[in-house]
């Protein structure tokens, strides 16, 4: 099927929801219970498992660590502490490479099998909202939908203009079902985390936002939320990318996040559903984030499933647990739309990963790029109502003025334009580059204006 359509569905009237594109969901793992895997032989903890700067290792080779021992300390504001997920010995502190060429330092731990808890761990004492933020600083929780934004920083907002607490359970990425399993298996901790946050922040209303095709999760969460009149379930269209912040906020509240602004500028806060659950769990037992659920899928996997993995488990061991059916040619960390391909078998699962896709042949051939036929599929499916085709042209011309006019900085790199393009043009890649360029230019312009003013 081609993707000619309108940005608001076939019918041009009524509420103008942002839609995106029809992308097959392929969520075959959604109905299976999460499995656990045996203790891995090594744990690799990179010092960047969040959006901000790298942590500083707090352990040395030969040190003994327990589950929950601080391994990496966050110095930057947008970083979060990293904790050991096993008890064992630090065997090495080494460099590792990201698939984009960046390097990082990683603490390698050999588990001793005892899994003893660090002595400092205790149930956090929460009395008011500030103590909740302080507790979250010690939790190692970051945005678990993939962004990796530290939760304590996200909680640290001025609630004067906030009237709604949004929980993102859209999980729009194809293949991935880990958030869905979180709802089906741990609805209690989700609700605990959410109600505690609502109590302490004073936000009057919360919405758990779920795509309309997940009917079981919708009715299940409705039952769970029935006891709290503040919490409602919001149903989103079954389209990619409903889980993207701008799209979700627009479709649930009708407000838009202003260009260059933050989600709180729309009067809402937005948390991933698994993050919410981890907050609830941390408030109950005080154990920092050391494990998470990931969806392992792909045609090369013998037994696709959701697995609970310790943070730092090498990809190799996760794949061994699920079994291989075919020769592997491509590994994707995250979902197929926004995830990145990984070429290192020993690279670990980090805390913001939600999926691991292992493929034999799919997408192996570089798509043949043909001439743009100006079909407009990229434009009519862009969830931000951008003009990927024009952005790509302007970027190639080096026309910075046009890129600013086209608001290229609003791109959130969801990949929809490249996906729908019949000419297989690298629209997402071009727009991503244009986006960075415009963002840098606008930042420079703001700074220059400030200097002038000062």
């Amino acid at each position: 099927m081609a993707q000619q359509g309108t940005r608001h569905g076939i019918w041009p009237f009524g509420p103008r929801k942002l839609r995106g594109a029809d992308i097959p969901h392929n969520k075959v793992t959604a109905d299976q219970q999460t499995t656990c895997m045996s203790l891995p032989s090594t744990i690799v903890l990179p010092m960047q498992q969040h959006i901000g700067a790298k942590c500083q290792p707090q352990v040395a080779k030969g040190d003994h660590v327990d589950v929950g021992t601080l391994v990496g300390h966050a110095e930057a504001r947008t970083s979060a502490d990293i904790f050991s997920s096993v008890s064992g010995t630090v065997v090495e502190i080494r460099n590792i490479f990201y698939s984009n060429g960046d390097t990082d330092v990683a603490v390698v731990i050999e588990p001793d099998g005892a899994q003893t808890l660090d002595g400092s761990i205790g149930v956090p004492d929460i009395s008011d909202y500030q103590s909740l933020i302080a507790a979250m600083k010690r939790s190692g929780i970051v945005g678990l939908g993939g962004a990796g934004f530290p939760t304590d920083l996200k909680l640290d907002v001025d609630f004067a203009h906030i009237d709604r607490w949004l929980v993102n359970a859209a999980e729009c990425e194809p293949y991935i079902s880990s958030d869905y399993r979180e709802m089906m298996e741990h609805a209690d901790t989700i609700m605990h985390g959410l109600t505690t946050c609502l109590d302490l922040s004073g936000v009057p209303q919360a919405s758990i936002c779920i795509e309309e095709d997940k009917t079981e999760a919708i009715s299940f969460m409705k039952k769970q939320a029935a006891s709290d009149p503040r919490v409602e379930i919001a149903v989103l269209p079954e389209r990619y990318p409903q889980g993207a912040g701008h799209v979700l906020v627009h479709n649930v509240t009708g407000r838009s996040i202003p260009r260059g602004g933050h989600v709180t500028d729309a009067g809402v806060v937005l948390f991933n559903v698994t993050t919410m659950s981890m907050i609830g769990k941390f408030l109950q037992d005080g154990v920092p984030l050391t494990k998470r659920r990931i969806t392992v899928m792909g045609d090369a996997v013998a037994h696709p499933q959701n697995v609970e993995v310790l943070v730092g488990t090498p990809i190799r061991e996760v794949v061994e647990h699920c079994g291989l059916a075919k020769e592997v040619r491509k590994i994707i960390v995250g979902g197929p739309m926004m995830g990145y391909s990984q070429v290192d078998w020993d690279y670990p699962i980090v805390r913001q990963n939600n999926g691991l896709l292992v493929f034999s042949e799919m997408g192996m051939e570089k798509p043949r790029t043909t001439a743009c036929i100006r079909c407009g599929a990229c434009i009519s499916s862009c969830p931000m109502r951008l003009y990927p085709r024009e952005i790509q042209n302007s970027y190639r011309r080096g026309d910075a003025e046009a890129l600013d006019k086209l608001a290229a900085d609003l791109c959130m790199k969801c990949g929809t334009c490249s996906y729908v393009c019949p000419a297989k043009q690298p629209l997402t890649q071009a727009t991503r580059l244009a986006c960075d360029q415009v963002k840098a230019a606008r930042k420079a312009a703001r700074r220059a204006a400030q200097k002038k003013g000062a």
Partner: protein
Amino acid sequence: MPHPEHSLTLFPAPQILSGVTTRRIMATVIAALLPALVAAVAFFGARALLVVAVAVASSVLFEYLWCRLRKLPNTTHDLSAVVTGMLLAYNVPSTLPLYMVVIGSFVAIVLAKELFGGIGRNFANPAIVARIVLSVSFPVAMTTYVAPNLALSDIDAITSATQLAPSAHAASPFELFLGTQMGVLGETSAVAIVVGFVILVVTRTITWHVPTIYVGAVFLFSVLTGHDPFVQVFSGGLMLGAVFMATDYTTSPVTVRGKVVFALGLAVLTCLIRFWGNMNEGVAYSILLMNLLVPYIDAHTADVPVGVSREKWKGIPAGRFARRKDNADA
């Protein structure tokens, strides 16, 4: 066991792409054009098939030769030349001498398409340009229609007018809809074109807006000005033009608002030319004229990106057609 020697591939996101290619879109359009071909063969005999075959073959050949001569990658595999060839054949009478068909293919492929940069860069629909060039160059041959084989009522053998001409035999709306009337090869059977329209919309190759609004507006204007709306809608090139040529990606606007403006413009021009003009080809000329306005329609009907306030939105630049401030000295 995972094998460390499995070499893994690196690719930027998104890691999956849809199976839709230009070739598949063109194949869908060809499929949507087939009902009209069946109708044409039923009404006008094997000669119709011959005209289509010559038009397709010569279009593909011209594109191939152009690519060879200009040392460009061969683009005939995208099937767009086949679509252009079919549309060109649908726009000429089944009696047209074959050399004229070949001239039409040359105009469509070389003059209208390749000289402007090939697929996606033509300023107007190639088949429309070819139809206009042929009808201006060979007015008699282009209006020599034969009576359909399956006529429901008695029609004089060879005449030189469609139902739109005042002297024509009056057909019933049902005959018009079925297509047992005189006209160019592919445009007579409204029902076959409607089937094609449904195929295109269901496969989401096009949206419903342009054809529906264009035809609907012509119907409405006909009623308002006292013309027979069924004759206006079902005869002449309106249905064929609205479904297959006004929806050409390259030469039609991209947003819904743009499509509405485009379709209404088409309807107004078509009615002006048909009711008060003195030439044939009302649909062809209106599509050509509106094609030229598409960059401007696109620039002024752009959607505002999410998060940009309407006041601050300056619209999208009209590309190479934009008149730039730094263009002139003074």
